[in-house]
Structures are given as C-alpha cells and as structure tokens.
C-alpha cells in the first residue's frame, strides 16, 4: 500500500506558554519550541504499522518553509520512507482551502492508495483532510482511531461522542484524519535522526506542482485571521496566593465548604 501522510510543524503547546506579540498580529515566536503536530505523529506511526503488515511505502509531506524539513526528517527517522517539502513564496498566507489545494497537487504527482492527516493541528480547525478528500473526490473519514486493511478497502473506526466508536467500510483510495490514541508512536532517538540526516528531501514549488499561484496564498484566502487578542476572561478563577501552606489551608477551607472532603 502506498501511503501519503500530511504533517505540519507547529509550536508545541505543551512546551510553551503562548503569548500574543505587542502588535497583536501574531504570537511571540522567539524561543518557541516547535515540533511535529501531535496528531500527525500518530498518523505516521499508523502508516508505518500498516506498511509493516501489508507492504508498500510511507511518504511524508508538508507545506512550509525550510525549517519544516526538520519535521519531515523526524518522521523519516520513525520509519517513513520518503519526504517531500512543498515550499513556495506563493503558498504563504494560504487558508485551509489553499493548503488543501497544494496537497491535492502533490497527491496527483504520486500514486497513493491512502492519504492521512492528523485530525487537527495548531489552529484547531480540523479541516484540511476533509477538503483534500472532497477536491480529489475520494471518500473521507475523520477522527479515525482504528484501521483494518482489507482488499481494496479499509475498515475504519471513528471516535464519536461518549467514547463510542463508529465503524465504517471505506473504499480506497481514500483520505483519513487520524485521532490521537490510535496507537503508541515510537520513540525517535538521536541515532535515528542521524541516520536520515543526509537523506535528500525534494522541494516542490507551485510550478513543479502545476499549482496556479493565484489559487493559493493570502490573495486567494477567503478566511483570514485579522489579529490575536486576549479575551475578556470575565471573572475567571480566584487565584490563591501566598506560601504553599497558606494556599493549601485556603483550599482545604473551600473543599470543606463545597463538599470536596469526605
């Protein structure tokens, strides 16, 4: 099975406090720790496990700049066979539809049976996989937490409300967005990274892909972020201050009053 996994380099929200810059037009990017989007990591692991069972290859692709190459390399250290960097000034400022348009062109340059994305990334939109599938006229399933490979089709479980799982048959080629928890992504050590450090990763721009530069980028975006802001928190929590002993004493008073101690 030929599998393409779309990945993204994102600020790691578990490693950073996200601050808005003074102009309000971006977050503070200095000193941010970046990593591969958490959901994408599960998608790559799943792709590797499928190929280990049924054969084939895993290609990882990302839309980004030169720095995005590091996440491709990291996923190749996990076991992905190939990486492709989609990079062009014309891609900057793309909305979800623009990104899907670029990825569609990359899909059509290959011969993939299965395309995976993470269920969502840093913007929390959960949109690119579904858009890509619709553009390709491939069937789509989101929030997938189980995949069983069959002949020409897959049996997939979707995570739905209440911890229940919705089972579907889906014909290939198809697009799946992968939910965290579907597997346990393998650890990537420094040795693994070194092994792929010199592997060449091809870069493709708009003209290589045959993408009309006017159909992507900021100019084509119908959805645009105007600014970041700190919302009016309302009352918010009463923050307990003081020494740890004082805080704990206050907290215990609250817990007693609210029925939190038995």
């Amino acid at each position, binding site marked *: 099975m030929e599998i393409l996994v779309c990945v993204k380099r994102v600020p790691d*929200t*578990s490693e950073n*406090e*996200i601050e808005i810059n003074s102009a309000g037009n971006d977050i503070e990017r200095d000193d941010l720790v970046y990593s591969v989007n958490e959901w994408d990591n599960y998608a790559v692991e799943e792709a590797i496990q499928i190929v280990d069972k049924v054969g084939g290859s895993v290609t990882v692709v990302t839309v980004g700049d030169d720095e995005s190459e590091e996440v491709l390399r990291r996923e190749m250290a996990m076991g992905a066979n190939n990486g492709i960097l989609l990079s062009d000034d014309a891609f900057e400022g793309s909305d*979800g539809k623009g990104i899907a348009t670029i990825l569609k062109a990359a899909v059509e340059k290959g011969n993939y049976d299965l395309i995976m994305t993470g269920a969502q990334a*840093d*913007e*929390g*939109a959960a*949109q*690119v*996989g*579904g*858009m890509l599938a*619709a553009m390709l006229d*491939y*069937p*789509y*399933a*989101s*929030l997938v937490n189980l995949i069983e490979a069959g002949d020409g089709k897959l*049996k997939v479980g*979707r*995570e739905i*409300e*209440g911890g*229940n*799982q*919705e*089972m*579907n*048959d*889906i*014909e290939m080629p*198809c697009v799946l967005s992968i939910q965290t*928890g579907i597997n346990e992504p393998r650890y990537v050590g420094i040795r693994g990274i070194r092994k792929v450090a010199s592997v060449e990763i091809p870069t493709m721009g708009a003209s290589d892909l045959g993408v009309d530069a006017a159909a992507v980028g900021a100019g084509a975006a*119908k*959805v645009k*972020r*105007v*600014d*970041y*802001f*700190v*919302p009016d928190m*309302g009352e*918010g*929590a*009463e*923050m*307990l201050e003081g020494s*740890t002993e004082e805080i704990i*004493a206050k*907290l215990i008073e609250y*817990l007693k009053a*609210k*029925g*939190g*101690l*038995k």
Partner: protein
Amino acid sequence: MAEQVFAYIKHDQGVADDSALELIVAAKKIYPDASVTAVVTGAGSDLDTICNEMAATYNAVWKIDNDALAYPNAEVVRKALVNILPADSIVLLPHDTFGMDLGPGLAIKMDSAFVADVVDIEGIDNGTLKVIRQEFSGMASAHVTCDISGGAVMNIRPGVNQPDESKSGGGEVVDKSGEAGDLSTKRTYLEIVEAEAGDVDITKSEVLVSVGRGIEDEDNVEMVFDLAKAMGADVSCSRPIVDAKWLEKSRQVGTSGQTVKPKVYMAMGISGSFQHLGGIKGNPFIVAVNKNPKAPIFQVADVGIEADILEFIPELTEAIEGL
C-alpha cells in the same frame, strides 16, 4: 427579503442534539433578521417527530427523508445537502465529531468558504463576516474574517450559544426528499461499538480528582490516587492520559469520553480544552492547579492555583491526611 441561513439539525433517532436550538442563535448573530431554515435528514417517523419539533423554533424546516440517511453518515449527508441547498448558501453545523466529518468537504463541494470551531460571531460588514476562533489549544483567541459572498459553511462550537427556547419560529415543514438525488457513496456505515464500562463509574462520582498532561510520567499517576483516597474522591483524567494508556478510557472526562456532574472537580495539570470542559456538567466547584497561568482552565475554574502539580499534589495529600 430576509437573508436566509441554513442550520443542519443533528438528532439521534428523532431526539434533537443540544446544538439544534443553539444554531439559530448563531444564525441571528450573522443577520439579526435572518430567516433560518432547519435542514433535517433521516428516515421514517423519527424524522417527522424532529421536523415538527423544529418547526416551532425555525422559520422553515426542510425535511430530507431517505433510507440512506437513516444513520447520519457525513458522506451521504453531504451529497444530499449539495443537491438541495441553493448556491451561495450560509450553512451552520455543530463543531462536533459529525460537523468535523461533514463541514470541510461540504464547503469544497459548494465552492464556499469554511470556518471551523466558531466561538462567537461579531457581525457582517460589506460581505465580510467577522468571527472569533481559538487557536493553540485555546491559549490564544483570534478575530477571523470570512468572505461569505460566495456562501459559507460554518462549524459552531457546541455550548457557546444559549439555546433558543422561545419557540417563536412557526415554520412549515417542506418535504425536499425528492431533490436529494444520488446518495451512493464509497464509505458505508456499519455499526456503533459502545464504549466499554470501567471499574469506576465516574459519571456518578461526587468528587473527582482529574489528572492531565501535567502529571508528565506514568509513575506519577499514583500520587493522584493517593490524593483521591485522602479526599474520598474518584480519579478521572483528560484525553492525553488515555492516549498514553496510563488510565483506562472509562476514566476520561470530555466530549469523546464521559460526561460527569460532580459537586467538586479538581483539575490537576489539565489545560482545559473545550472538548474536556464539554464533559463537565452540573456547574461543579472547579479547582484548577496548573503551572501555566495562561491555561484556559483558569477561565472556568472557581479557584485557581499556579503550581506544578508534581510538587503540589503530595503536599496537599499530606495536609488532608493530617486533618
């Protein structure tokens, strides 16, 4: 003529989802005088029940009855909607596991803009709609503009709009089933596998000590059980703890886990994503302990403590044991 907005009504065999009465409120934030049409898909008598119920709230109800729509497979629903909705429509969906499945592809097929997980709508100016979204796990809010001149699909976060209980719609049910067209798809719904029950039913717990990513390591989970034991509480958790297989799925609080309604909820090292908060009902007293003062959990907690739970939990446990 009033501007028209469509709202997709999610229901489970005729029982309306909470979002059904919320989407009309969102529609009226776009156009205060909007004529809002409920679009309801399904099959048989359940569908008639929900259509009649929605007619009380919405200005019109479009019913799409087809055996292929008996279960809301987003791929099938999308085909029906593309065939039935007018070009350039504004369509509202709930941003839940169904809306995420449907919305992005629907927007492509309708050649319209898509905005996901809208938490508020500021209004419209010259064909451009301004909405509020959250990014980076809720740690930053953003104003986003959307060119709706060619239509839009918008996924609205559940729970952010108060339901419209006024029943002031007075709409008619219009049967659009004949326009649904070809509903064949390459994805076939098979069945729902129900979540497994665990050893503790956290939906019945009065006090929960809930642990999140801040616990950092599986070996540290034990200290949470120690605190819970001292308090007479049960242990629950957020999604990353289940993803890491440190606790069983039945202890997960959130829209993709359990819905709990305790008196006291201790959020320990939980940042507070909307999916997690969506699983906490009944307005409990929420205590949040997190080392990140920007964590969204502090917006909803009653009492907050900026601390590393790995240091705070053992001290709190010791203090409670000493009472």
